[in-house]
């Protein structure tokens, strides 16, 4: 199981993410340069936080044209796991791998604080180590995290159970105050229909060590490890179903 962390000019959580995956979680991890065309055989691509291309034009709008992102798009199309954190989430939206778009935070402030998010769905590749309704305490640091999707798209996202995390208070209640950036339906994290791509605004890599005040972010990485182990050839549920049918 090998992880790849993509570096863009302006990424600033790349080394934090690399550190947590390789040193804290102890999984083989490589850095991937945005100008390259080779994913180096990784099993999971992580797009880290930061300000790729200075957030010029719109957050993530330029990074999506990087050569490596075309490889990431093809990788996701083949079912490869992709995790976008903060700016990585914004890039995935601009790339069209995830539905919706980001608007400026409702109070027009850059928000840098710990928030609580609730696991809405624990049957995803990114949350299976947690439980539905579990509250995670993780930090956010963004200007454009106000999630928006047109009404019809939002309906479909909810119907398909694509909402993975919602902003909530410490007790797990979704309140207007807890929805700090004004996201529609308090959406903090959303996955694609197929379920192999997740974007979230909070930073799990900044909440994976005791010394940093929270280890709740590990749930997301541990879920990915479980998912990737399950995805070994011959162990896919679909393959098992087919085998039974053939018998």
């Amino acid at each position: 199981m090998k992880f790849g962390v993509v570096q863009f000019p302006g990424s600033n959580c790349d080394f934090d993410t690399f550190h947590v995956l390789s040193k804290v979680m102890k999984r083989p991890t490589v850095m991937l340069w945005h100008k390259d065309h080779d994913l180096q055989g990784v099993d999971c691509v992580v797009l880290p936080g930061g300000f790729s291309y200075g957030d010029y034009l719109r957050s993530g709008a330029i990074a999506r044209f990087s050569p490596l992102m075309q490889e990431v798009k093809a990788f996701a199309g083949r079912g490869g796991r992709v995790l976008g954190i903060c700016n990585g989430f914004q890039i995935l939206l601009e790339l069209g791998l995830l539905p919706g778009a980001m608007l400026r935070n409702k109070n027009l402030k850059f928000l840098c604080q710990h928030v609580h998010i609730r696991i809405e769905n624990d049957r995803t590749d990114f949350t299976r180590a947690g439980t539905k309704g579990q509250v995670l305490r993780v930090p956010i640091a963004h200007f454009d995290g106000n999630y928006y999707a047109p009404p019809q798209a939002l309906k479909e996202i909810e119907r398909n159970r694509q909402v993975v995390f919602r902003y909530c208070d410490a007790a797990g209640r979704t309140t207007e105050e807890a929805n700090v950036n004004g996201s529609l339906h308090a959406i903090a994290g959303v996955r694609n229909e197929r379920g192999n791509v997740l974007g979230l605004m909070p930073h799990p890599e900044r909440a994976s060590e005791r010394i940093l005040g929270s280890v709740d972010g590990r749930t997301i990485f541990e879920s990915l490890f479980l998912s990737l182990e399950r995805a070994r050839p011959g162990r896919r549920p679909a393959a098992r179903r087919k085998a039974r049918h053939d018998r």
Partner: protein
Amino acid sequence: MRVRILVSFKDSVLDPQGQTVKNALHTMGYAAVQDVRQGKVFELDLAGTTKAEAERLVPEIARRVLANPIIEKFDWEILKGR
């Protein structure tokens, strides 16, 4: 040829920056201002482009790059050349 492209939020999307400017204008006494929408302006110099080519090229550039069609709309005009 020089063209100008104006990108702004769709009417259905809340524009918090425009709202803030509107509130400031009201504070200053400009009560006539009913609404403010903020946008971005791009000016493109196009080499050796006819009007017909620009009519194909500019909306394509606006849709693919300059605007995010989920939240934004665009208008454009020719400033110079024909």
